[in-house]
């Protein structure tokens, strides 16, 4: 098999891939042996704690740490004055982890201490005196865009994007051009093609709505935690719960002025990430405390800190227009998206804009997005960042269009579905994709045939996610007994170690149990991008396959030496080296165990390696179908049945693929039903805990039914597509469409909590 093979055509039948063995880390996790972020200790370790702003926006006039520093047991106190100054993107990260002259949101870190125990650390925090001057704040995206809104960063943004917004003709009518020199609107994003004005003139039916979604948190069970240890020679070690330890190393080294080679980062097991652990919060603070104290420092966020000071997703305000002919063909689509991503630029509005209409083949489409800053914590990625909100708005309009046209919602989507060769709404032309296949499978499923009762409704929605690849490096070391040690550099947040083992086993023709995967630290492997973008099974998988092929080639070379024949006269099949043909000689096969046992005496250790900046990650589409029942007396909504159909390209470990489908669906259900960041008039978060911020529990959801569609991705040797994110794109819209059908009124505001359902029912009756 050629090492540069990059087409799914080179592998059509599988022995290991496509099976669902027990995960290698499973036993440790269920017995409590697995070590997470907070589980590591070191001799002489101190406890790190962070003091946070109680104000949404305030000038920090002075900080007096003298009493805290004098407290017995306190070994270090730091403020922004202890951190280097930076410009550009690093400056935003640095200010987010430790406020400089202003606190920009409730929960913003302003100082930190390292002490001998938690009690002393807490007491020290109380002894830090900060003189605040409270400033006006804004937490709502629409209010932040008003000309007289309090400015989050006075003077930083020049008003150009605001003027474009006001001049675009897409905003509310009657507003004059802004004369302000500063604004909260950071950037404007434009996508689309064709002529939407002409397109809407061709439309027989037009649907138009305004939608809002609230910020939600990823809800990972494990809070952020790390243990930093900086020695007196300036070198350091960090044990951390993260989705990307190479990123943590590089960012921390840059922020703290360390050589990258002098910081070694080891990832712990991770208790959920979903995108929220793709940046740094406490890690540079722990390193700075350790450097100042000369002792190891552990920092563990409380749940309240996770809510107030890590990175939830953006809230949004979206306007959509969609026009179709009587036959159901879409002729024009238009959307304006406004996302606030907290106190720093970088809301995922551009990806919301790019994904909004990606499911459809549209002759005329225009999308404008605005990135807006507010006095909230800086948002972080959350599973398909930006896409669920825009899909909620667009798919809501598609659902209503189906009602108005009297068409089946799946048939309407299929009539307009993007296929191979479709020019996408965000620009590029699609290659082989599987949206139509998901729609067909959804329509055939038994759930779609269930007859609904009183107060029940059915919702359908489709969704798209790009999927990414990126920098990846993998090692395979052959052990003396013929088993393999597989070292990858992408933290396992969804069962990827099992998938990597399956792919290595597949390539080398050996049992799955003979391969053991670890997540190597930053000093043991070349750079790996963060575990994000649904990239790991694709990219680390691709690298694993090629590292296994490299290993197989070396095994063949070793067999050739033993047999005294040319290396190209040996082939690797079913876990053993064989003569490639009758001309090569008549030698009995040499198994991987036999070659491993002789390795030291036939040339030394045998290892496979591969590094790549991978490309070719195929996009993924999904279609969800959900039935709900609404109680008109209480507004309580029950999800009766839920179906996820998604294109996985090739499911390496089908049970984990189903788990990704189900997990995304449940998180999306939570986004619709209850989850929201609630801010008071004072700009403070009102519900920073799982009692008041309610994520779904088992009793809230039915069994999530799944169908895996496999339209091979030509960019991967086995046809793999990423699956981790697409599954959260359709649920907001699917459930909202079902609730709308059950209520008889369009749901345009999330979450659809019982009070909102009752209000919607009341609006219908009045």
């Amino acid at each position, binding site marked *: 098999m050629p090492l540069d093979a990059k087409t799914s055509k080179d592998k059509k039948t599988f022995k290991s891939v496509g099976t669902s063995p027990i995960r290698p880390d499973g036993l440790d996790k269920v017995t409590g042996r697995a070590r997470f972020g907070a589980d590591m200790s070191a001799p002489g370790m101190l406890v790190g704690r962070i003091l946070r702003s109680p104000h949404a926006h305030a000038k920090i006039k002075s900080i007096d740490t003298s009493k805290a520093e004098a407290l017995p047991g306190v070994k270090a106190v730091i403020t922004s004055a202890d951190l280097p100054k930076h410009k550009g993107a690093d400056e935003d990260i640095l200010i987010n982890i430790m406020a400089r002259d202003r606190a920009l949101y409730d929960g913003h870190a302003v100082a930190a201490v390292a002490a001998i125990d938690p009690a002393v650390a807490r007491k020290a925090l109380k002894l830090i005196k900060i003189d605040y001057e409270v400033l006006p704040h804004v937490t709502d995206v629409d209010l932040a865009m008003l000309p007289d809104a309090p400015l989050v960063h006075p003077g930083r943004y020049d008003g150009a994007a605001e003027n474009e917004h006001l001049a675009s003709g897409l905003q509310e009518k009657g507003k004059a051009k802004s004369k302000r020199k500063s604004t909260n609107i950071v950037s404007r994003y434009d996508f689309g093609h064709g002529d939407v004005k002409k397109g809407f003139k061709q439309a027989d039916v037009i649907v138009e709505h305004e939608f809002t979604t609230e910020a939600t948190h990823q809800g990972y069970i494990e809070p952020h935690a790390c243990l930093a240890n900086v020695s007196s020679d300036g070198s350091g070690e960090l044990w951390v719960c993260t989705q990307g330890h190479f990123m943590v190393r590089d960012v921390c080294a840059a922020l703290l002025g360390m050589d990258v080679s002098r910081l070694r980062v080891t990832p712990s097991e991770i208790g959920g990430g979903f995108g929220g652990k793709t940046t740094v919060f406490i890690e540079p603070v722990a390193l700075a405390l350790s450097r100042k104290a000369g002792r190891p420092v552990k920092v563990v966020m409380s749940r309240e800190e996770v809510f107030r000071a890590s990175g939830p997703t953006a809230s949004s305000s979206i306007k959509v227009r969609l026009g179709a002919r009587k036959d159901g063909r879409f002729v024009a689509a238009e959307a304006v998206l406004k996302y606030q991503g907290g106190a720093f630029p970088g809301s995922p509005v551009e990806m919301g804009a790019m994904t909004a209409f990606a499911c459809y083949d549209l002759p005329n489409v225009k999308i404008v997005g605005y990135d807006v800053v507010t006095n909230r914590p800086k948002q972080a990625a959350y*599973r398909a960042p930006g896409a669920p909100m825009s899909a909620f708005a667009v798919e809501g309009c598609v659902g209503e269009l189906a009602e108005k046209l009297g068409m089946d919602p799946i048939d309407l989507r299929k009539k307009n579905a993007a296929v191979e060769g479709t020019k996408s709404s965000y*620009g590029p032309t699609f290659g082989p994709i599987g949206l139509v296949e998901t729609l067909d499978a959804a329509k055939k499923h038994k759930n779609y045939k269930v007859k609904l009762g009183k107060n029940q409704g059915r919702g359908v929605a489709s969704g798209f996610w*790009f999927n990414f690849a990126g920098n990846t490096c993998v090692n395979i070391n052959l052990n003396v007994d013929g088993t393999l040690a597989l070292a990858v550099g992408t933290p396992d947040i969804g069962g990827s170690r099992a998938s990597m083992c399956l792919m290595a086993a597949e390539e080398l023709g050996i049992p799955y149990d003979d391969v053991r995967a670890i997540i190597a630290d930053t000093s043991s492997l070349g750079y790996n991008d963060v575990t994000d973008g649904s990239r790991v099974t694709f990219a680390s998988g691709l690298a694993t396959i090629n590292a296994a092929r490299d290993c197989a080639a070396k095994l063949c070379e070793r067999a050739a030496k033993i047999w005294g024949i040319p290396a190209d006269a040996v082939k690797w099949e079913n876990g053993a080296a064989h003569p490639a043909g009758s001309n090569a000689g008549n030698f009995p096969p040499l198994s991987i165990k036999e070659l491993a046992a002789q390795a030291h005496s036939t040339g030394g250790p045998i290892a496979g390696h591969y590094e790549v900046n991978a490309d070719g990650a195929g996009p993924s589409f999904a279609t969800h179908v959900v039935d709900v029942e609404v109680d008109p007396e209480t507004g309580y909504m029950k999800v009766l049945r839920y179906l996820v159909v998604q294109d996985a390209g090739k499911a390496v470990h089908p049970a984990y693929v189903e788990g990704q489908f189900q997990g995304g669906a449940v998180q999306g259900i939570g986004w619709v039903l209850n989850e929201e960041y609630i801010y008071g008039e004072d700009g403070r978060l009102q519900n920073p805990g799982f009692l008041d911020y309610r994520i779904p529990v088992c009793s809230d959801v039915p069994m999530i039914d799944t169908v895996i569609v496999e339209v091979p991705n030509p960019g991967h040797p086995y046809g793999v597509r990423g699956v981790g994110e697409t599954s959260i794109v359709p649920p907001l819209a699917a459930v909202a469409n079902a609730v709308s059908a059950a209520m008889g009124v369009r749901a345009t505001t999330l979450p659809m909590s019982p009070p909102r359902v009752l209000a919607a029912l009341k609006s219908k009756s009045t």
Partner: protein
Amino acid sequence: MLTVRLGGSLVSRAGGRTEFQLEGRNIMEMLRHLGQICPELQPMIEKNVVSVAVDGQIYRDALLHPLDPGNEIILLPRMAGG
């Protein structure tokens, strides 16, 4: 010559212009030419905050990826997932 279209915030940074005719044998050379004829985009190119879609495939860091005039080339914001 390569026909290169823009998307996202690049459009407003380029003063509303959405298409350029550029030279370059690979992504690095194409971006260098773009920065020369549209200096407003140079900061974004230097900060590496653009992705390049070539025939439907999105490249984030592959500066040496070859280009030819038959390619569909679209500049997009640099993207990241969760």
